[in-house]
């Protein structure tokens, strides 16, 4: 179980996170939603140690992660698909995937996982020898997810994996999230697409200006009025429909 307690982060003068607490039980899917700049990415970045929190702790199955270097955290199976497509542009698709398995040494397992990734994203297989920098935005996002899968994560944290993806691919991504969750991987998901995210989530948290303002099982949140009007845009959508 991943447990975050009292997490605070400052960027210079900005108090981006103001004491966040959340739990991700083993085997579950947890979604984190919230407006732009609420601090979602910051939360995930502090979990993997890319950002140093000013207060609070992160623990994984009882072990404190706070203060560990990123590679140690990743080696423990806590893995992040970062926001924006942080693939290695000068490396080929293949090499990017190989790097995902950097800390592993089981050749057979790696090969199998690569197959699995190509199964999820045939587009990547077509472009296996192409430099990742020349992939389209969506292709890069696929690669980023694929690369993360190569680490054989125990918990996979995804920061807006559907950003800039075609509807078909978004659906696919959510399918994959479910699929890997079924294989036993815990998932912590950040999404703008709140509806889709909460639909598959066992539990959801709503983040606003650095604080958790709401939490509960995914289905419950979906039904919550505040969530509906602020994040699902239902009221507004209705107006828009009328205007057209």
């Amino acid at each position, binding site marked *: 179980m991943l447990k975050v307690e009292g997490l605070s982060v400052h960027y210079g003068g900005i108090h981006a996170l103001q004491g966040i607490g959340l739990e991700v039980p083993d085997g579950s899917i947890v979604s984190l939603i919230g407006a732009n700049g609420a601090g979602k990415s910051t939360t995930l970045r502090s979990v993997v*140690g*890319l950002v140093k929190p000013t207060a609070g702790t992160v623990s994984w199955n009882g072990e404190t992660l706070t203060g560990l270097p990123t*590679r140690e955290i990743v080696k423990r199976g806590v893995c*992040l698909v970062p926001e924006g497509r942080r693939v290695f542009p000068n490396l080929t698709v293949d090499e990017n995937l190989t*790097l995902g398995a*950097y800390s592993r040494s089981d050749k057979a397992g790696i090969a199998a996982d690569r197959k699995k990734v190509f199964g999820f994203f045939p587009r990547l297989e077509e472009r296996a020898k192409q430099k990742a*920098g020349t992939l389209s935005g969506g292709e890069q996002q696929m690669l980023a997810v694929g690369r993360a899968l190569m680490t054989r994560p125990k918990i996979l944290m995804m920061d807006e994996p559907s950003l800039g993806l075609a509807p078909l691919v978004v659906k696919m991504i959510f399918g994959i999230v479910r699929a890997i969750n079924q294989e036993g991987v815990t998932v912590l998901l950040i999404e703008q697409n709140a509806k889709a995210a909460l639909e598959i989530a066992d539990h959801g948290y709503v983040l606003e200006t650095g604080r958790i303002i709401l939490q509960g099982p995914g289905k419950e949140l979906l039904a919550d009025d505040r969530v509906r009007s602020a994040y699902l845009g239902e009221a507004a959508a209705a107006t828009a429909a009328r205007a057209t």
Partner: protein
Amino acid sequence: MTLALFLQHLANALALGSLYALIAIGYTMVYGILRLINFAHGDLFMLGAYLAFYGVALFVMPWWATFAIAILVTALLGVGLERVAYRPLRDSPKISVMISAIGASFLIENVAIVLFGGRPKGVTVPDVFNVKLSSHGVSVMSVSVVIPVFTFAILAVLLWIVGKTRTGMAMRAVSTDLDAARLQAIDVNRIISFTFGSGSLLASFGGILWSYKYPQLNPLMGVMPGLKCFIAAVIGGIGNIQGAVLGGFLLGGIELLTIAFLPTLTGYRDAFAFVLLIVVLLVKPAGLLGSRQAEKV
């Protein structure tokens, strides 16, 4: 120009070019990983040469022992340099890092002046390197034959490391995106230290061979070779190891052969290096073998 004369010029050019190439390799590696013009590279080159000199002169060790110790010590110094002067600035604007590099370079030079004195020192060249080989009116010193051999051997080893090994792939990853590399469980600091260490090792390797070819030491001896070899690396395509070698040979060749054919222009020699550089950059902005990273809009 007679054939013998031409061959002699060619031999000279190869000898100088391979030395440039050797030093440029280290330069290009360090640049490749941090995108940093390590102005102190030339100073590590100088330190290597001094260390080897003192090993022989003060501690009366055989040349090969002091050679080995000197390059290892310099490699460690390079690692230390990165830790002290560059690592704290990893997230800073590029220009700060570059200033830090210039500052480090000043510091090493000035400490060297205080420690070693500003006056030059003559090096006793080990006999193996000091054999005169001549045939058909062409003469070269054995050191000039040894250097290209080393250069190509090192090139081969590095190509293998960077292209084929896990460490090499990690080096390439680190060089493009630190955070993303961290997320792949890569020990970024170790990779950078390793690269810096190897680059510095090559710098001192080059420095020592340089001092066997041009047996004179002074605390500022690394400045010009440092600059020239950086140019060589840029000409070849910085970050690209084959490019560094190519650039080194080209630079050596242009410098010496233009003088050979146009002796009246000898005064402009240093300008040739830069003219070559500028011409190459204008035609191929990323250097001869460099690939420009396509910028996605």
